[in-house]
């Protein structure tokens, strides 16, 4: 094939066509030589699959009754089941897990309420899924690139995203790193390697595969993690991402938060197979199902997946089973499609925060007093950030027009000038006082 580049003038002729054909046939034959064909052997010769022959007609049963088991480290009361699986993290680390999860919970309560009061336009809580965020984030390197969906704020919080920045994005004020362009909870942080969230679901999945491929070529031992829900996993982009990452050997962790609902759609209307973990083998991918409400199980699985993904350049699929305690968003009232009893069960009997607290109190690392003072302190911190965000002006409306392209283009500049002139003329009809000048 190499010779073709240097035979420019002759391409059009039939003679050259023959040569190309022969060259192509030859290279095809070279490829075929790598697999010897021998029809005397009673083994299938198909290029597409390397299996054995069978002479009994039998359909493979999808194993949905006793599916892939759920890996856990703690029971629902926070007791370690198998001591060899206790990651034996330091008190400092575990306290940090707990404080991050509860800080997230507190921030969620306050921002949810602020939407109810008309202070911000929209919000999505993370109730019940804090374990999936903190456990996985803690198992990663700070330089690992994160692609999220929209219910992973705890990952950002774990990495140190300041409350002021969370609030700024939700309020779309002048401190928003995203310059006020997106709805609340569409966070992003270049410094913390958290790619800005977008509303279309599952689009991040093939993107994560591409990023992981590029990261692999950099040879810096970084990994990429990609979060998504069990609903988003139905999108075509999910199939694309899984297949590409396996075929192209990417150091990537797919982290599925299976929380039982995609808005109102329960899992039995989302898929018929054994959840998302069972799809992994179909792509040639190592897969595991974990108890998402067990922060140590999430931590252990993510840690091992990360280690191997980078060492072996292959993707891993972690399906973290959990439950979405809150509504889908402030635009949803989940009592329309599920019972309060169901929600209460998860809130009271199987919650990542209380399970970790039991683990801590059992070791004498956390007391009632600690709990009381921490609640007070975290609430105060969140409220202070909240009040600061409330007072802040919105970004300059000039920012409506920038970053469409890297450079400003003439036609857009004209539109910008036209808006400016219009607003000057009709200024009493525009809320200019709320925005920076």
């Amino acid at each position, binding site marked *: 094939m190499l010779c073709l580049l240097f035979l*420019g003038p002759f391409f059009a002729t*039939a003679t050259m066509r023959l040569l190309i*054909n022969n060259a192509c046939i030859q290279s095809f034959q070279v490829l075929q030589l790598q697999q010897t064909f021998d029809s005397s052997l009673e083994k299938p010769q198909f290029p597409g699959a390397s299996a054995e022959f069978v002479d009994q007609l039998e359909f493979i049963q999808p194993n949905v009754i006793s599916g892939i088991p759920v890996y856990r480290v703690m029971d629902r009361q926070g007791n370690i089941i198998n001591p060899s699986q206790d990651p034996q993290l330091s008190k400092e680390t575990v306290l940090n897990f707990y404080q991050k999860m509860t800080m997230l919970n507190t921030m969620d309560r306050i921002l949810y309420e602020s939407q109810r009061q008309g202070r911000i336009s929209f919000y999505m809580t993370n109730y019940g899924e804090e374990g999936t965020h903190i456990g996985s984030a803690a198992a990663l390197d700070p330089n690992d690139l994160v692609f999220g969906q929209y219910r992973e704020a705890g990952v950002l919080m774990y990495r140190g995203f300041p409350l002021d920045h969370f609030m700024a994005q939700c309020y779309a004020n002048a401190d928003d790193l995203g310059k006020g362009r997106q709805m609340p909870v569409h966070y992003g942080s270049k410094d913390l390697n958290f790619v800005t969230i977008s509303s279309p679901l599952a689009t991040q999945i093939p993107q994560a595969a591409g990023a992981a491929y590029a990261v692999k070529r950099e040879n810096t031992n970084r990994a990429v993690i990609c979060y998504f829900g069990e609903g988003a996993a139905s999108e075509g982009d999910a199939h694309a991402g899984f297949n*590409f990452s396996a075929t192209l050997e990417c150091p990537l962790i797919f982290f599925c938060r299976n929380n039982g609902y995609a808005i109102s759609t329960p899992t039995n209307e989302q898929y018929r197979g054994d959840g998302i973990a069972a799809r992994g083998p179909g792509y040639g991918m190592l897969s595991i199902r974990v108890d998402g409400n067990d922060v140590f199980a999430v931590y252990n699985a993510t840690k091992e997946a990360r280690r191997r993904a980078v060492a072996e350049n292959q993707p891993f699929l972690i399906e973290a089973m959990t439950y979405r305690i809150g509504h889908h968003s402030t635009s949803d009232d989940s009592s329309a499609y599920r019972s309060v009893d169901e929600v209460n069960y998860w809130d009271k009997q199987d919650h990542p925060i209380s399970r970790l607290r039991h683990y801590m109190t059992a070791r004498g690392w956390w007391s009632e007093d600690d709990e009381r003072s921490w609640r007070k302190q975290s609430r105060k911190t969140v409220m202070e950030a909240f009040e600061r965000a409330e007072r802040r002006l919105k970004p300059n409306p000039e920012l409506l027009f920038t970053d469409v392209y890297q450079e400003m283009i003439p036609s857009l500049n004209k539109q910008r000038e036209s808006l400016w002139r219009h607003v000057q003329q009709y200024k009493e009809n525009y809320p200019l006082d709320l925005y920076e000048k």
Partner: protein
Amino acid sequence: FLEPEASSCEGMMAAAARLFLRGANSKLSIAPGSLGTTLLKLSPNCSSRTKTQRRHAAHFTFQPDPVPSQYGPTQKMNLFQSITSALDNTLASDPTAVIFGEDVAFGGVFRCTVGLRDKYGKDRVFNTPLCEQGIVGFGIGVAVAGATAIAEIQFADYIFPAFDQIVNEAAKYRYRSGNMFDCGNLTIRAPWGCVGHGSLYHSQSPEAFFAHCPGLKVVIPRSPIQAKGLLLSCIADKNPCIFFEPKILYRAAVEQVPEDPYTIPLSQAEVLQEGSDVTLVAWGTQIHVLKEVASMAQEKLGVSCEVIDLQTILPWDIETVCKSVVKTGRLLISHEAPVTGGFASEISSTVQEECFLNLEAPISRVCGYDTPFPHIFEPFYIPDKWKCFEAIKKMINY
């Protein structure tokens, strides 16, 4: 590409055509010149003279540009070779650059990536699974991670599964993240436009769909020299670019193309010939039709035409087109894509806003009809030189 040698029924077995058709060929590939050839030889209807069987000649004549002197030594290249040259230059100078898509590893169905895998390695030039939304999504990810991503979509007709990734993701990445993230390192290439027999799914010109999407750049070259320079500009450009390559020109267009890298600026339309009576605007293959129309108009009507190659569809060079229409007072825009909502409507709308009082006649659009791209009716469908010529006549006599 494994095709039989041309035999007595050469007219029927135009080998070149099969190269362009996806997945065709499988039945004829293994045993050249056997049963099929014999049957055809024996058939009384098989004669290259028969009218119904003779394939229609191309609707244009490719007009090469003069040899450029400012970019160093040149080499005779056709369009696909000029693309290979641009990609070769890129892989040589940018260690992060990767090329991927369906069938690019062996050289691509149009030979645009021939030799590159052997030269630069299988981690840089590789096949992906058959999934356009995956190809573009993956490409976005590569670009976001800071590497140069050159994604190939096998035919522009198949770009639609990737529409969400292109429009909702690639185009908006920078804006929505407050400039923290972007996929400026992404370039998407796809074969584009009519090819004589491509029919619904191997002939489309989808530029209008993407022209409606701020954040993207859409570029279409008319020739090998243009293609290499514009593609290199797209790759260098810090915004996601879609580069449509007129497939009918892949082999038909031959020019002396500089071997070294060079760029042709984006968003700058080129006035190919100056004129005083009518402005003719097109891009890609249609430029060659319009150049011929300009000669016809001069010869038969004494009408002097100014021919403009738009080159970049988005963002388009409003200034150059308007400046020309202010001078001539008449505008004809021509493209293969269907007329309704086609890009000519955007040009027409903007020009009438900016140059209303300069217009001597309504702006004329000579485009494809509002039908899917037909197979056997292609000679009637396309905006050929006779339709453009007639439109000029009408404008002159308005």
